[in-house]
């Protein structure tokens, strides 16, 4: 908890630093704050986890692992932010503060132990993002994205809240332990309120993670938002939303698996196919990544579908691999867009000849997203698929493999463009922060790919 308090105070501090014209200090102070939070969380790792603050939050291994992952990815995003926000407007401090606030919300979502906290965590996470998506005030698509995200977010929060209310109506409590006890105590006389509550919760959370058929806001919002905000949304926010999703279902709803698994199965298959088929048709790299993030949501839903002791670890490794690779891909996209002014695949033509380092790291990221062996993405997909194989029949696995093949096609388009499509271009200038992020990202992707136990042992 001390980490969350530190972060909220850090955000306020950043606001006032911006007020007193200390712009140079913003980035170092934020990174220091994140580091402090990581340290505070690591100390908690070995202590016995008890629900805190009248059972509002619980910092078990699950919460601490996902929190540290979120903090780490946010750190990478911050490293990329050097010179990025300055070009948008002069109120840079607000953007740092809002990202930290959003991160605070994400940390609450991964460690909630009471449905009231889930709701408030999601709200804190999203309200900050509604503003961040629209920070380019003179850009029409950014405004559109902000409005769309706000309307869809508010709409889905309604479903979520209604679901929480119905669950409360059935059990008389918001507390996860008491909801679980209710299910165990009345296996045959569960109130119909409870079933409707689960359905509405699934709808609300599917909106938040961008799963089909509730995905339609994702491409426009990801495309309209500034690239760095898209990076944050598609990594930290998505990871946190999935962790919250899994935490709720893993602690409470396992006994009712027969009821919700078919619903989730339909959502998963739809998400996979809609995400991948739409990604095939894209000409813009950013939009392709948006659709591919939908399909990754589909793979991560496998973890919830085959819920069990292994699913926390599987989702953790998968989201870590996906987040790291996404940060690398978006970082390269920022650089390419800065030099070429375009987000299309053609903008990547001939990148390998002038910037071999950029091209190599992006290739590693793409291979990881596609799930090629010896990268982190493969480990994640492997863990997901083996979970599915243990619980479901072979047809679902075949569908997943078919989708993975489609994924390989569109991810390789970038690699082909970089290495085999010659084009006249200037060398892209890369500053030290970007070099560091790309290096860390590529290194971790390969390291996890070769030694999966690095991460898989955490949960």
């Amino acid at each position, binding site marked *: 908890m001390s980490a969350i308090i530190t972060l*909220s105070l850090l955000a*306020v501090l950043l*606001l*006032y630093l911006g*007020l007193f014209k200390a712009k140079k200090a913003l980035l170092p102070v934020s990174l220091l704050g994140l580091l402090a939070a990581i340290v505070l969380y690591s100390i908690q790792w070995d202590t016995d986890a008890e629900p805190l603050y009248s059972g509002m939050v619980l910092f078990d291994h699950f919460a601490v692992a996902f929190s540290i992952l979120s903090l780490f990815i946010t750190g990478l995003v911050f490293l990329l932010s050097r010179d990025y926000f300055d070009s948008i407007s002069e*109120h840079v401090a607000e953007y740092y503060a809002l990202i930290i606030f959003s991160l605070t919300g994400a940390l609450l979502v991964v460690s909630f132990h009471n449905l009231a906290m889930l709701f408030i965590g999601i709200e804190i996470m999203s309200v900050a993002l509604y503003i961040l998506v629209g920070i380019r005030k003179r850009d029409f698509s950014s405004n559109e994205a902000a409005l769309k995200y706000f309307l869809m977010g508010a709409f889905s929060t309604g479903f979520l809240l209604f679901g929480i209310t119905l669950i409360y109506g059935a059990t008389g409590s918001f507390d996860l332990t008491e909801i679980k006890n209710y299910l165990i105590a009345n296996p045959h006389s569960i109130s119909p309120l409870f079933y409707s509550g689960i359905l509405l919760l699934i709808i609300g959370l599917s909106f938040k993670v961008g799963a089909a058929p509730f995905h339609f806001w994702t491409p426009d919002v990801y495309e309209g938002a500034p690239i760095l905000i898209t990076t944050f949304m598609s990594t930290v926010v998505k990871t946190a939303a999935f962790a919250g999703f899994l935490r709720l279902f893993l602690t409470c709803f396992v006994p009712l698996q027969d009821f919700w698994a078919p619903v989730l199965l339909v959502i998963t298959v739809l998400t996979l196919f809609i995400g991948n088929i739409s990604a095939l048709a894209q000409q813009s790299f950013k939009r392709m990544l948006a659709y591919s993030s939908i399909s990754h949501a589909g793979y991560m839903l496998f973890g919830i579908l085959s819920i069990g002791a292994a699913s926390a670890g599987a989702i953790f490794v998968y989201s870590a691999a996906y987040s790291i690779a996404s940060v690398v891909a978006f970082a390269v996209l920022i650089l390419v867009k800065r030099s070429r002014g375009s987000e299309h695949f053609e903008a990547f033509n001939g990148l390998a000849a002038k910037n071999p380092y950029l091209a190599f790291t992006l290739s590693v990221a793409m291979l990881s997203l596609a799930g090629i062996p010896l990268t982190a993405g493969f480990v994640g997909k492997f863990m997901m698929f083996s979970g599915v194989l243990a619980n479901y029949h072979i047809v679902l696995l075949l569908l997943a493999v078919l989708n993975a093949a489609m994924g390989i096609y569109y991810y390789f388009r970038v690699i082909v463009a970089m290495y085999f499509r010659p084009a006249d271009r200037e060398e892209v200038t890369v500053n030290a922060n970007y070099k560091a992020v790309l290096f860390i990202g590529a290194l971790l992707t390969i390291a996890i790919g070769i030694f999966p136990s690095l991460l898989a042992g955490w949960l």
Partner: protein
Amino acid sequence: MTQAEAVNTSANYLPILFQLIVAGGFGVGTIIITHLIGPKVKTENKLGSFESGIEVIGNARQPFSIKYFMVAILFVLFDIEVIFMYPWAVNFRQFGLSGLLEMFIFMALLLLGFIYVIKKRALEWD
């Protein structure tokens, strides 16, 4: 909660209902009565809008400053804050010092944001 109890409580609100009816009835009634007893002279000048004898130019609906919007949002925000203070104030004595501190933390965060907004000159009309 049985039906009888639910019904009992709303009886306490009956005066409010009567007040609403009187207030609404007065407004609607006077409009209807003036329509009924007033003389009806319809000339072009009388039906046109009165602009101190000057010809009417343009549309009455003009977009106005977005600063009004800021004031309205601030009103809603502090409205919500006051709503949270209300149940706290009802049993203020019971909570003692710790309750006071807890409320101060709540208000301090919002106040810090308010000071920030003022310092950023978001409330200045230029």
